[in-house]
């Protein structure tokens, strides 16, 4: 008998509201369907009525974890439209913030993966280390989440000598810990056993469904915007694109840990070679009619902004495609023929982190053919009601232990 189970759209543990409807055959998912739009805020429409400077802060609020990704993608696009060459020191600081953000996002993801796999101490470890990065970001920018660092022509705040030394010291600590995690992810049998073979996405599917970021790289494709279409100062830095061939959640974890290690090396390079000079240059207010397609490698994958200007101080059109949207089509492919118990792990592996849903259950009665939607409290009340009616003495239930 086939069941339909609905996950979401809202749950206290969800980062974003997404509704997922699955057709189950026993415990195996036969088909899955996504419904989006629960947190659609009309930012693209709103951007057409705001000036370019206001839009930096608007795009920052598209996402909480990769706030710097969206502003950088927007800022570098508008700088291209303005034909403005940003200050070199500004570009370095922009890249430092970008890599710090990648480190904190990947550490957050590792913790979430550990929690979904039932490895709670891993979650505690990585989130403790993430605080080191959060403190650095707060020290540089004044904020933990929305750093508001970007401005056309550079950045808004400088990094001083004391901050530079402190960040380099903190990196030493994080490097040691991350080496330990890589060792753990590769050798801890329970962790490896839980993640290996879950959420398979073949190389061909990953290309056909236009997956991005660590999801794509874990399927064996070395694609990274930082190397393919270098922006900011990535063309000056040597780095390896991390890939894995296992095409599963374990591969995605390994790719992210490898990226952490390469991010530390990049941060070290950037901080040691930080050029002297101004950190921003003056930018014009109005922009000539033109258009630009700006790409950026966010922690979750390729982030894309298409900006069209019309000669005024407001954009004619701003189109944003965040990495998670690109990965949804691939997620459906990963879920098919997987187990219901793997849903949180597969969903977390593309990094929007959707936990086990228990709030809404749609019960389909196969015999009567009708369906109803129950809230979790109703479901619990039904269970309690049923438990009260059972006469345990009459049924002579043997205690299993």
């Amino acid at each position, binding site marked *: 008998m086939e069941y339909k189970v609905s996950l979401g759209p809202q749950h206290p543990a969800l980062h974003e509201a997404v509704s997922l409807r699955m057709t189950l055959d026993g415990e195996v998912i036969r088909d899955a369907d996504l419904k989006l739009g629960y947190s659609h805020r009309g930012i693209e429409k709103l951007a057409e009525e705001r000036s370019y400077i206001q839009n930096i802060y608007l795009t920052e609020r598209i996402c909480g974890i990769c706030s710097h990704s969206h502003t950088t993608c927007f800022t570098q696009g508008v700088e291209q439209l303005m034909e403005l060459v940003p200050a070199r020191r500004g570009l370095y600081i922009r890249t430092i913030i970008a890599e710090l953000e990648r480190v904190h996002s990947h550490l957050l993801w590792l913790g979430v993966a550990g929690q979904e796999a039932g490895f709670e101490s891993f979650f505690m470890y990585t989130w403790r280390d993430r605080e080191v990065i959060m403190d650095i970001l707060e020290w540089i920018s004044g904020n933990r989440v929305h750093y508001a660092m970007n401005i056309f022509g550079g950045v808004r705040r400088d990094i001083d000598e004391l901050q530079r030394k402190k960040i380099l010291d903190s990196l030493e600590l994080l490097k040691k810990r991350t080496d330990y995690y890589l060792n753990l992810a590769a050798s801890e049998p329970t962790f490896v056993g839980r993640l290996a073979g879950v959420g398979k996405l073949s190389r061909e599917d990953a290309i056909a469904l236009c997956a991005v970021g660590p999801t794509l790289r874990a399927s064996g494709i070395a694609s990274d915007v930082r190397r393919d279409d270098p922006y900011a100062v990535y063309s000056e830095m040597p780095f390896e694109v991390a890939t894995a061939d296992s095409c599963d959640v374990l591969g995605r974890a390994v790719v992210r840990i490898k990226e952490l290690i390469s991010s530390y090396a990049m941060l070290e390079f950037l901080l040691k070679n930080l050029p002297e000079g101004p950190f921003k240059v003056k930018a014009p207010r109005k922009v000539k009619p033109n258009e630009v397609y700006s790409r950026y490698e966010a922690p979750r994958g390729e982030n894309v902004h298409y900006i069209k200007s019309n000669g005024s101080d407001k954009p004619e059109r701003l189109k944003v495609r965040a990495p998670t949207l690109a990965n949804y*089509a691939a997620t459906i492919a990963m879920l098919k023929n997987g187990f219901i118990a793997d849903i949180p792990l597969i969903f977390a592996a593309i990094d929007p982190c959707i936990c086990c849903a228990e709030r809404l259950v749609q019960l389909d009665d196969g015999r009567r053919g009708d369906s109803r939607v129950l809230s979790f409290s109703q479901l619990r009340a039904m269970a309690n009601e049923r438990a009260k009616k059972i006469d345990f003495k009459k049924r002579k239930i043997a205690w299993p232990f």
Partner: protein
Amino acid sequence: MNPEAMLEKIAAEAGDKVLEATLSVPRRIQLKTQPSQLNPLLAYLKEAFGLAHLGTISGVDLGENFEVIYHLSNADTTVNVRILTPRRDPRIPSVCGVIPGAILYERELQDMFGLVVEDIPDGRRLLLCDDWPEGQYPLRKDWKFERPAEIIPGGK
């Protein structure tokens, strides 16, 4: 293959499918084509240059026409393929046959601009809510949001 060589190869091999081909900034090629030639052109680009990754599809309201831009990327170049469709009868062909990952972007275009994507495998709404009125397309330039007047229950 560098973008200049790519542009020459496109002009030589797919000249009949392309109306206009330019290299605007480094690593960005702009192509213009007819809606009827879109699928053959994308299939050719995928075959010849490995342009299989569709970044997104951008819709732009130009007044008389809608412009639809397909942003394709490979390891070193991004190609923007654009088509125009009239506002009176906005129809574009679905590219899901060539690029299966385009489905969510095409559904978004239907929601936001009211374009009719022909032969789309799954044409349901994606982003707009279920009780959104028919015929309202938020990203068209003539669509304005008017905040309903606030009524305080029991107020004067």
